[in-house]
């Protein structure tokens, strides 16, 4: 009998075995009438076994759709259970079926022994197939694929989240910088104005004294100008402090963003250490190898051949899932390269630290050179307030000289304090060293595949 079935290698063994057993069951000494029922039983058994072969072929073919199951909720262990249960059931069915083919009498005792052996071998054949890891891998690789898909979306969201956190902070910094510059300009123009007002008040006072000798010097307006300059300078100091605190807060937030970014990169690194293309590829190779090895461990050559063919067909199916994983994996890596995978790219650094904007802000602030401007105001005051005092009484001259000595010095000290204060150091540190540290932290963080 020739079988056109896909998995028919086992048939030859059945046929040969039945033939050999038949010879053992037939006693040559017996006459034809006695032999006939034995021959009938063997013919019946052979026909039944050919039906078994059809059933077996279907049982194997029907297992393959398990390897086509596709779902986002599929798991390796669930697929493994499904596969094992299927084959265990087929094994039990095969055993029952073959034992059921043996006639319920003692006319063919050898045939019974043969059938028992075949039944057990076939049950063992299905038991062996039940432990082949193809379905487990098929489920597992889908789990990986889905995991990479969801993590890719998650990371995209995380990246957006980090950017949003950073954007809110960056715009705050930009606003603060613009406010500072505006404040600088306003304050400088106000201070200049007051300085000029003071100068004018001084000129007017001296002029009045010269026109009316003996008239006491009216220094109130001049002193008010000095007071105003100092008070403006102080409120300016406070505003600057407030703004620097905003910088500090923003920096802290930026530092948090950088920590979260570095942390996420590390998580991606650990994630990819566990599951990556190499490991999945190794798993795939190993699954194929183990499955083929297991197929070759089947009891008989025919079973081995059928099992190998079956496994080969199965491998073709699971390969598609492996390819899907590869695609998903590569998409994941490509999408995240320069952000969470590999060294951090300049673009990502720029998006987190807004380096150019920050540098521009700092340049604007430093270019404005408020320290110098304050010093200039003082220098200007010193220079312009040294008006001609000829024509004044000695007493008035002394009063003016005392004013120059005391008030201008006070003014100088006041402006100097602001110009040289720790505020500037802090601002400078935030814009320079601290930001360099953040950049280092980002650059030194290890991401996926590093």
């Amino acid at each position, binding site marked *: 009998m020739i079988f056109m079935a896909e998995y028919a290698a086992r048939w030859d063994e059945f046929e040969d075995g039945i033939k050999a057993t038949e010879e053992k069951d037939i006693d040559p000494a017996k006459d034809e009438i006695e032999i006939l029922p034995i021959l009938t039983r063997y013919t019946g058994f052979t026909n039944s076994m050919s039906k078994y072969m059809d059933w077996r072929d279907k049982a194997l073919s029907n297992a393959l759709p398990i390897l086509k199951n596709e779902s986002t909720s599929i798991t390796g262990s669930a697929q493994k259970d499904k596969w094992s249960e299927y084959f*265990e059931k087929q094994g039990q069915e095969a*055993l029952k079926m073959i034992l059921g083919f043996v006639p319920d009498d003692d006319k063919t005792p050898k045939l019974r022994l043969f059938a028992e052996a075949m039944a*057990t*071998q076939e*049950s063992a054949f299905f038991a062996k197939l039940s432990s082949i890891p193809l379905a487990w891998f098929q489920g597992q690789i889908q789990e990986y694929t889905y995991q990479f898909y969801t993590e890719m979306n*998650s990371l995209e969201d995380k990246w957006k*989240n*980090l950017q949003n*956190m950073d954007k809110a902070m960056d715009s705050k910094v930009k606003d603060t910088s613009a406010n500072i510059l505006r404040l600088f300009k306003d304050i400088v123009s106000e201070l200049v104005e007051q300085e000029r007002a003071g100068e004018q008040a001084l000129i007017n006072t001296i002029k009045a004294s010269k026109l009316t000798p003996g008239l006491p010097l009216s220094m109130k307006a001049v002193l008010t100008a000095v007071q105003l300059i100092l008070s403006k300078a102080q409120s300016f100091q406070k505003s600057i402090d407030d703004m620097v605190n905003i910088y500090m807060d923003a920096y802290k937030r930026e530092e948090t963003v950088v920590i979260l970014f570095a*942390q996420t990169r590390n998580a991606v690194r650990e994630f990819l250490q566990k599951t990556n293309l190499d490991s999945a590829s190794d798993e795939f190779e190993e699954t194929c190898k183990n499955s083929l090895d297991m197929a070759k461990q089947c009891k008989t050559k025919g079973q081995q051949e059928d099992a190998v063919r079956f496994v080969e067909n199965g491998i073709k199916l699971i390969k598609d899932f492996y390819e899907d994983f590869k695609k998903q994996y590569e998409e994941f890596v490509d999408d995240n390269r320069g952000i969470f995978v590999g060294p951090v790219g300049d673009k990502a650094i720029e998006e987190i630290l807004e380096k150019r904007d920050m540098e521009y802000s700092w340049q604007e602030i430093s270019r404005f050179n408020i320290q110098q401007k304050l010093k200039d105001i003082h220098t200007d005051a010193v220079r312009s307030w040294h008006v001609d005092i000829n024509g004044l009484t000695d007493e008035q001259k002394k009063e003016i000289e005392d004013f120059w000595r005391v008030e201008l010095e006070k003014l100088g000290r006041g402006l100097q304090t602001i110009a040289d204060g720790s505020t500037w150091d802090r601002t400078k540190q935030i814009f320079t060293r601290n930001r360099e540290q953040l950049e280092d932290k980002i650059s030194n963080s290890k991401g996926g595949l590093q």
Partner: protein
Amino acid sequence: MSDNLTLDFTKILDETDVKTWIKTDAVTNSFVQNGFRVTWIDWDSDFRNSDLQIEDVIIGYDDVSLEPFLEPGKHGSAIGQHGETTYWQKLALKHGHTITLKVFREGKKEILEISGKLLARRFYYDSEEKRSLGPGGPPNMLRDDFSDAWSGWYEKLVWKMSHILDGGWDHKRINNKKELQEHEEHKKRIDYLQERYLGQFADAVMSDWQKVRNNLLGKEIDVVDLEYREIGAKRVETVKQEAYVAWDKMHSDLEDEMIQAFPTAEVDNRETVEGKIIELPWIGPRNIINDLGQSYAVIGNRTEGFYFVQLSNSASVRKFYDVMYRYQAQVSPNLKERYQYIARITGEPALITYDRRAVTGLMAEIIAARAGDGEFFVDLQNKDKEIKFAGQEKVNQFAPVKIEKDASPVQVIEAMIEAVKLGHEKAWKNLFATWRAYLYWENRVAFDPSYIPRGSFPSAWEQSRRLITDRVYDVRVDKTNTVRRIIKKDEEVGFPDVDEVDVFVDHYELSENEKYRTFLDVNVRRKWTLQRLDEGPWRITTVQVI
């Protein structure tokens, strides 16, 4: 009195009409010993005076093997069978001839030799020469004040007593209480027999009746270790009280370090709460998420902020689960998947995907936790000592269900009973075979290596647990029979050596006198069959209720 009648009201008509006066059943498909199993010994058989017992298997007598009698169609003239007399007559043996039976008895290594006389058929009469069951009566056909004649009654009684004594508990799954009730109904007639027809027959009947009664009564024990029964409600209650006390104490001990958990500090201001301790709200499985291959408990919401507890790769979480599994083994396997943590804020921010959106929050490490409805609490802070759940010392400890590879069948069954008592489903499942060798046709055995009894587990487990916590107070191994090799190794075919053995267990229920007594009915299984492959570990072959 007629001439033929002896003084003891006994008459022998034919000295060659001899028998052993025992009854047997042919055993043809045993893997241990085929032969003829004794199912009854008549009251006047000479073997009543020997050690022969019901359930003994006669394999021969003198130098004669009974094997040829086991062939189909040949049973009839064997010892204890209907045509036994014909056989002895062919050998011309007469009344009083002594034979020595070769007997296989379960549990004995040697074949026993038991001697007795063949006796001729005896006819018994009463004083009025009426045919009787024994010398002096009772007359066969007389009813006295009972509903049926003595002969009919006795025949039925013997049938029933044979049914019970011939493996009633082991092989027939009798309902012993029902049988006992029926058996007790004969007491009146037995007493009457003693009063009215005192003699050898009445004594034998009384003795048999008593024997059967004792058999049906079962065994009685005074004490059963019922600690396992406290797994569940009682132990939970004990431990729960301790858990609540420990929970409150922990709060008062940590009062200075504790802060309100919500709203959380901003992640940028995490240094303000670093090291502080918080009590987190109850969480369930929905709060457990996986993020980039790590699992976290996410606690909080978008309005008030989030805390994250890393569950994977965390030493404290591992400890928590270890202790929780211990609790489930020792106190109750039922613990709701609800958890509440007391945690220390690490000061580390984190960005995690929760509910499909990336959220930021603060990392926290658990220092104590409770589960279920608060009945389980563990303080994880103690680094030096073994960490125990609250109340652990208040409940006696059970040894875990363990089984060695070379455990005997009895040990396997004892482990099975222990697993059912302690509620260890996984350990219980592991004791069952992942193959099957079974009789499929007469004495032919099929070996099915692909068999796994998956489907039967859930109901067998549930019913077993229900029984052991309700009607059944204890299950103990009673006896085991001889290991039999049912399949011989054949590497060419792929058969392993398959050995099989039966272990019989006793089920105890609470009796009226507050003691514990064995019982048997359809709800429990006394016989447990185990097999092993190639002398590997013994495993139970059938998934069944305890």
